[in-house]
């Protein structure tokens, strides 16, 4: 028994960290958020060269054949530098959907393209996790109609995987006739979330209509677990920056880190975050190895990380004083990424309700 990274995972972690730290500096983030597409070809090429775009795609479909924990190692690093990269939708959620419900033809058609970095996929599942504005997509006679809101990584996508109801998955090509895409501006411009309005748009079923509830759940679980990993990285970086700044900034003729009140603020953040690391590992492990616990862990890791990250976003800003509230430090990109991750695929309250139903504590 060994609860932690394998040697290979440690190497993966190191190489992805080296890449994000050297190739995705804050100045680059500043430029990219102005574009707001949640995508940058150079970053994408870099990830492709590292061979991680196909991280959870089996080797027979051109992927790296690694595990889900490897995927969350990468997602955590992307969160750490608030990278605009559609990794969550394209490399984690889409392959999960295709592997769970797709035919061999579909796997052969899409997975190698994803692994090669040629195909980017947006995921529309919000109507399963919480319907707003009467959103919802229906599938009939090979066509889909309705609207899908908060499509993850949708702005730069070449195709979309949408849930039509709770148990049908479909593929829709970007630019298909009858499809209208609208960017939904959120606080977090490192990710491109969109709305799709569909009017009799040609769609390809993934799996069979009405019997893919388990696959839909699997995709949501994967997304939530990866969002938790992203939150872990984002929060970790904020905490580090709080500590770095506190050791440098002087007031009252001493570094502010020497004030016990401020130390306690930092120590509280660190103490709250530290156990999250192991929780993310376990939740990731479950996605692949322990099917019975996968959904519960996905719910809890997503909501717990959200609860821990929100005060970290606030307190790190506070530790920077007026400087934290400005754009100068760029801290707010992390703050806002935490804000979006917290709500995507369900706010903490609603996700915990699912956990209660799942455990039979309350009726659905």
């Amino acid at each position, binding site marked *: 028994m060994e609860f932690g990274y394998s040697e290979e995972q440690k190497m993966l972690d190191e190489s992805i960290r080296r890449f994000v730290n050297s190739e995705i500096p804050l100045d680059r983030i500043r430029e990219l958020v102005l574009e707001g597409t949640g995508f940058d070809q150079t970053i994408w090429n870099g990830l492709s060269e590292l061979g991680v775009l196909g991280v959870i795609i089996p080797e027979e479909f051109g992927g790296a054949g690694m595990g889900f924990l490897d995927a969350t190692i990468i997602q955590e690093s992307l969160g750490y530098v608030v990278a605009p990269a559609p990794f969550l939708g394209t490399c984690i959620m889409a392959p999960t959907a295709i592997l769970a419900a797709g035919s061999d033809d579909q796997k052969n058609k899409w997975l190698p393209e994803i692994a090669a970095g040629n195909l980017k996929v947006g995921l529309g599942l919000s109507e399963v996790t919480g319907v707003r504005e009467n959103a919802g997509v229906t599938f009939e006679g090979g066509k889909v109609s309705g609207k899908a809101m908060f499509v993850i990584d949708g702005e730069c996508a070449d195709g979309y995987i949408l849930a039509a109801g709770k148990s049908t998955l479909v593929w829709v090509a970007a630019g298909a006739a009858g499809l209208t895409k609208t960017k*939904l501006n*959120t606080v977090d411009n490192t990710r491109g979330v969109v709305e799709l309005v569909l009017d009799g748009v040609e769609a390809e079923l993934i799996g069979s209509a009405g019997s893919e509830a388990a696959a839909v759940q699997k995709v949501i679980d994967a997304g939530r677990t990866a969002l938790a990993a992203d939150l872990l990285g984002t929060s970790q970086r904020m905490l580090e920056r709080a500590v770095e700044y506190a050791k440098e900034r002087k007031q009252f003729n001493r570094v502010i880190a020497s004030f016990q009140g401020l130390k306690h603020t930092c120590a509280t953040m660190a103490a709250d975050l530290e156990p999250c690391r192991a929780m993310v590992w376990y939740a990731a492990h479950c996605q692949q190895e322990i099917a019975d616990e996968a959904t519960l862990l996905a719910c809890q890791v997503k909501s717990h990380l959200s609860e821990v990250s929100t005060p970290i976003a606030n307190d790190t800003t*506070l530790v920077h004083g*007026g400087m934290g509230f400005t754009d100068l430090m760029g801290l707010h990109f992390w703050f806002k990424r935490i804000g979006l991750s*917290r709500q995507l695929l*369900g*706010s903490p*309250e609603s996700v915990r309700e699912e956990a209660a139903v799942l455990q039979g504590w309350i009726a659905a």
Partner: protein
Amino acid sequence: MDLSYGTEYDDYRDEVRAFIKEHGHKSPASSKQGNKPDTEDKAWQKLLIERGYAARIIPKEYGGYGGEADLLKSVIIDEEFDGAGVSKGLGGQGISMLVPTLLELGTDEQKKKWIKPTLMGDIFWAQGYSEPGAGSDLASLQTKAHVEDGKFVINGQKIWTSSAHFADMMFILVRTEPDAPKHKGISYLLLPMDTPGIEIKPLVTMTGEATFNEVFFEDVKVPTDQIVAKRGEGWMVANATLKHERGMLGDPRQSSSLLHQVVALMNEESVNGVRLMDSPLFRDRLLKLQGRVMAMQYNSMRLLTNDLSGNTELMPILVVKLIGTHLNQDICGLAIDALGELGVLYDDSKYLRNSGMWQTRYMFMLGLIIGGGTSHIQKNIISEHGLGMPREPKPQLKA
């Protein structure tokens, strides 16, 4: 405790309601706050002062309504205006901080000159306190002024100065007595922002707006009578102002107005076809917040009574900024969580709710948790001044 609402108060409530019914449509939107008052804001403010709904207890000769302090009437005004979602008039650092400071410490001439145009929104003020090296440790400020030909000559830099880019005037702290101990060498001056030698550089905040600035002073000349209190007494004046700032930043009337807006939101919005108010989870969060708001409202009634009776007990005032600013942010946080994915929409996005105010306010409230003495500093003040605990010892230097 005497809180009997006699018939006089029932009549008063009717009067306020009638006013809101007749004039409420002229109220500016709350989202406009923080900008320079326009003609709509000013007209509304004028009307409120005439009726005694704003500047109630400020003497008439200084442009106020000149009413008697009346706890219950203030409460009625708050309740009715908040309930109807109607603006209670202009805010800002001039009205909330400078006016009470002048009333307390200004000369009669200063009161006559500055209070009325400030109340009417004709003069907008910025607060020039913080410097790059003097934030929490404000008393270590280094911007200097020396006297030359009957004028103060100011040199130095301020930072985080809210509204300086459109303000007409600034109240500023400068070091005039360099040889005195740090708290005794500061003076409090009033100066027009168009005085030669002032350079203003806006700073963009996390919300994406440029609401505050760096302000540079090079040989900026201010007549020596533009000082409040005496030379070297600026720290004392500033503390009088800060007291009002901290009261303003944690003002429960703002919490109550935000809370009302969340109630409306949760009544209107639904997820999965379920009205948010019907969700026991969000409802319970709302009710907890309501409890916190109520505690602060009654605390402020106690404060008002203390003010009127000259009671100077410290604790109820020391907690206002700390508790109020966090409470306000938590209220905005509930609105965002309840809206869920809709709650993260920003800018001019489709489906944006309340013009995006929940995200903007959520961040802005964090700014207020920092501004005007951070939460850490508030806790230091509460423990040291409120609870009589000793100051943190200086760190031991390594030999």
